[in-house]
C-alpha cells in the first residue's frame, strides 16, 4: 500500500519574498504523483512560483515522481520563481543524482538553505553551476 502526502501550508522567508514549502512524505510514484502535481499546480495558480520541495520525508521516488519535478521547474522559473529540492534522504538523492538533476535543479541540503537561496538572488538563472556529483 503506497502512502504519500503533500502539504503546502508553510510560508517561509521575509514577507516581501514568501517561499512556499511543500512537504513531501512517503512514496512518490505513478499513483501518488498526481497529488504532487495538483499541489504544485495549486501553488502556481495561486501566484506562488517560489517553491521548495521538502523531501526529507520521502522514502522512494519513481520516474513518474521525477517527471513531476521536471514538468514544473520551467513554469516556476517562467513565473519568476523556481522549484528547489531540499533535504533529500541519501538514498533518494542518489536517484536524482544519477539522472543529473543537481545540474538542472537547485538542490539544497536543508529547507532553510533552499529558502535562503531565494532571497540571495532574486531571479535564479535556470542553469546553476553543476555540483560535484561523484
Amino acid at each position, binding site marked *: *500500500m503506497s*502512502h504519500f502526502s503533500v502539504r503546502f501550508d508553510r510560508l517561509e522567508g521575509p514577507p516581501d519574498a514568501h517561499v512556499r514549502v511543500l512537504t513531501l512524505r512517503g512514496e512518490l510514484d*505513478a*499513483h501518488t504523483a*498526481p*497529488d504532487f*502535481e*495538483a499541489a504544485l*499546480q495549486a501553488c502556481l495558480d495561486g501566484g506562488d512560483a517560489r517553491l521548495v520541495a521538502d523531501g526529507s520525508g520521502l522514502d522512494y521516488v519513481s*520516474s*513518474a515522481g*521525477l*517527471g*513531476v519535478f*521536471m*514538468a514544473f521547474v520551467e513554469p516556476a522559473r517562467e513565473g519568476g520563481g523556481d522549484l528547489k529540492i531540499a533535504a533529500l534522504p541519501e538514498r533518494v538523492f542518489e536517484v536524482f543524482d*544519477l*539522472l*543529473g*538533476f543537481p*545540474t*538542472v535543479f537547485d538542490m539544497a541540503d536543508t529547507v532553510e538553505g533552499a529558502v535562503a537561496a531565494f532571497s540571495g538572488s532574486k531571479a535564479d538563472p535556470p*542553469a546553476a553551476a*553543476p555540483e560535484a*556529483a*561523484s
Partner: protein
Amino acid sequence: MGLVSVAIVRSAEAAAGEPPPLGLAMGMDVIVVLAVAVGYVALITPRSGSTAPHRLLWTPFLIGLGVLAAEAVTGWLHEGAIDPKTALPADLETAVVASAVGLIDTLLSLAILVSLRPLVLYRRRRAIVTAWGLLLVLGLAAALTFAGRPLDEYGPNAMLPFLVGAVLVGTGLSARQSWVSALTFRERMTAAFLALGVAVTLGALIYIRIAGPALLPVGDGTGEVASVPYTAALSRPLGVVVLLTTAFGGLYAFAGGLWLLFGLPGADVQDQRVGERRALRSLADLSGRLLDRSALAAAIARGPVEAGFGDAAWVALTDPPRGVLTPTVVAAEGIGTEAAAAATDAAALARAATDADGPLVLAHAAADHRVRTRPGDGVGSLVVLPLAQDTEAGGLTRGALFIARRLADAFEADDLAALDTFAGQAGLSLSHADLFADALERERLARELALAREVQQRLLPQSLPEVEGVQIAAAERPAREVGGDYYDAVRLGDDCVGLLVADVSGKGAAAAFYMAEMKGIFQAGSRLTRAPGEFLAQANDALSASLGRGDFVSASYAVLDAEAGTLAVARAGHTPAVLVRDRSRRDGGRWLLRGDGLAIGLDRTGTLFRQTLREQTVALAPGDTVVLYTDGLVEARDANGEEYGYDRLLDFVARHAHVDALDLRDLLLAEHRSWAGSDEAEDDTTFVVVRWTGRGETVPVADLTDGPPLTERPAFASA
C-alpha cells in the same frame, strides 16, 4: 398582570353592583385577549428536537386533569349567581371564583397551544405554518367580537365567519398527524393513551363548563340571562378563547389517538412514505446500473427532493484523478448547479460533516458563516451528510450531500435518520462507481501494456553482431508493467560494435512509443558517429522534441573498437556500467563507470546536456567484462525488501569473470530471479554482457593510482 388587574376590576364591579361603561368593558376584554396572545408568544420555546414528540402531550394532560378536578370541586362547593339586572356576578364571592377559574383556564389554554404547536408543525411545510397562524388569528378574532358585551346578550353575528373559519382550519390541522410516524411501536402505545387521555379530559372540561356543576346558574331562574361558564363571567372573549382552545386540543388529541390506535397515517405521511420508498428504490436501481459518476451524482441529488425531504439538494465531490481535491458541487436538483455552488462553502461544510460523522444540521442556515445566501433565498435550513468517507481505500471520491429547505428549522429527527440511510447508500454507490472506473482503467492499462510488450519484443534485436575478440550476450526480463527498457547492438564497420541500453520513463503505450523512436535514432545515429557522447547528444536533440512534459530517457551508449581494443562509453543519466578486470592481473579489479551526464529530456535545449556529458574510454585487457544494464537489476528487492544493489552486482560479475558471456548472462539472470523471486518483477530488467577475449595482443598493465583503468574527457571539448 393584565389578567389579574382585570380580575380585580371585575370583582370591584361585582361588589359595587354597577355595570361598567362600555369603553372600559371593551378595553378590559381586549387587554385580556392580548394578555393571552403575549403569554403564548412568550412561552414558545425552540424545540430541542431530541425528545419523542408524544411526550409533549403530558403537559396538557396533567394540567387538564388538575383544572378538571379544580373546576368540578368549585362547581360542587360554590353556588355562584349572575344578577339578571346588571348581568354581573351577583356577589363578590362569585366574582373571585370566576377570576380564579378564568386564570387557571387561561393557563390550560396556553399549555394546550404551546404543547400542541410542535406536533401540529411537525415536518413543517409552509402551508401548515400558515394554517396554524390562521387558526390563532381566527380564534382571537372570534373572541374579540365579544369584547365589551354584557353577559345577557347573545353572541354577535360578526363572530360567525371567524368561528366557522377556525373550526374548519382546526379540523384540517387535526387531520394531519405527521408526528405519529416518528414513533416506535412502544411509544405509540403510550402516545395513544396520552392522546385519548387529553381528549377525554378536555371533553369533560367542556362538558362541565357548559352543562355540568361549574355552570353558573342564572339569577331567580327567570331565564333572562343565559347560562355562562365562570370564565365568561370574568371576560366573555376569554371564555371564547378558552372554549376554542380546549375544543381544538380535544379534537386534535382525539384524532391523534385514533391515528395511533388504528394505524391510520395522515395523508401527507402516506405521501412521505411513498416518497421514501421511491427514493430508496431509485437508489437501489442506481447501485446496480449507474456506474457513471456524474449520472450517479445527479441521481443522488434528485433522491431527497423527489422523496419530499427537501426543496433543493446538491452533491459536492472530490475527483482526485482529475486533480479536484476539495469537494466541488457536481450535481444539483431544485436549484441550479452554479447557484448551489455559490450558496455555501461546500468544502468547509463537507469537512464539518465528515468530522461529525453524521448529519450536520443547520436549523437556521442563514445565520451560519459557511452559508452565503441571505434569508429568504431558499436556504432556510440545511442538512449536510458525508458521502463515501472511504479513506482506507485511498484516493476515492469524498464529499457531501446537501439538502435545503426554504423554511428554517424544518428537519425532524426521523427525516434525518432516513436521509442518513440514503446518504450511506449513496456513498456506497459512489464507491462502487469509483471501483468500477478503476477496474475499467486497469483493464485499459492491461490491454495497453500487452500491446506495449509486443512492441517492445519486436523492437529488440533478433541477433547480436559477431566481431572477432568480443562476446556479446543480452537478456531482458519484462515486468508486470512494461517499463520501457530497451537495448540494441549494431555492428559498425568491420571492427566496431555500438551498444545501447536505455530506460524510457512512463509505462504502456507511451513507453512503447518512445522505445520505437529510440530504435529509429539508434539505427540512424549509430552509423553517423562512433563517439558515444555525440550519439547521445543527437538522441537528446531528437527526443526532446517529442518527449512529453515530465518524460525522460536514461541511456548508456558504448562503442567497442575491436581493432584498437578500446571501449568508449557515455552515460545519459543511466545506471553506471560495470567494468571487471580479472584479478589474476595486477591491474585487476571492479569499477562502476560513472561519468557525468544528464538524462535525455532533462535539458531540452541541449546546451547543458553537452556541457555536462563525459566520455570514458577503457583500454581493454583480455578477459575484461563490461555489463550495461537498467535499474531493474540493481533495484530488485528480495522478500525482505532489500535492494540487490551495486556492490552485489560487482561481486557477482567479478566472481564469474572467467565464464563465457552467454554463461554469465544465464547466471546473472538466475541470480536476479533468485533475488527478486520468481514472480513477475515490479520493473523491467535488461542487461548486456560484453566479454573482451582480445585478439592475442598484449596489453600493458594499467596504472590504477588515479582510479579505474580508463581515460576520461568531456564529450564536447569546445563546450
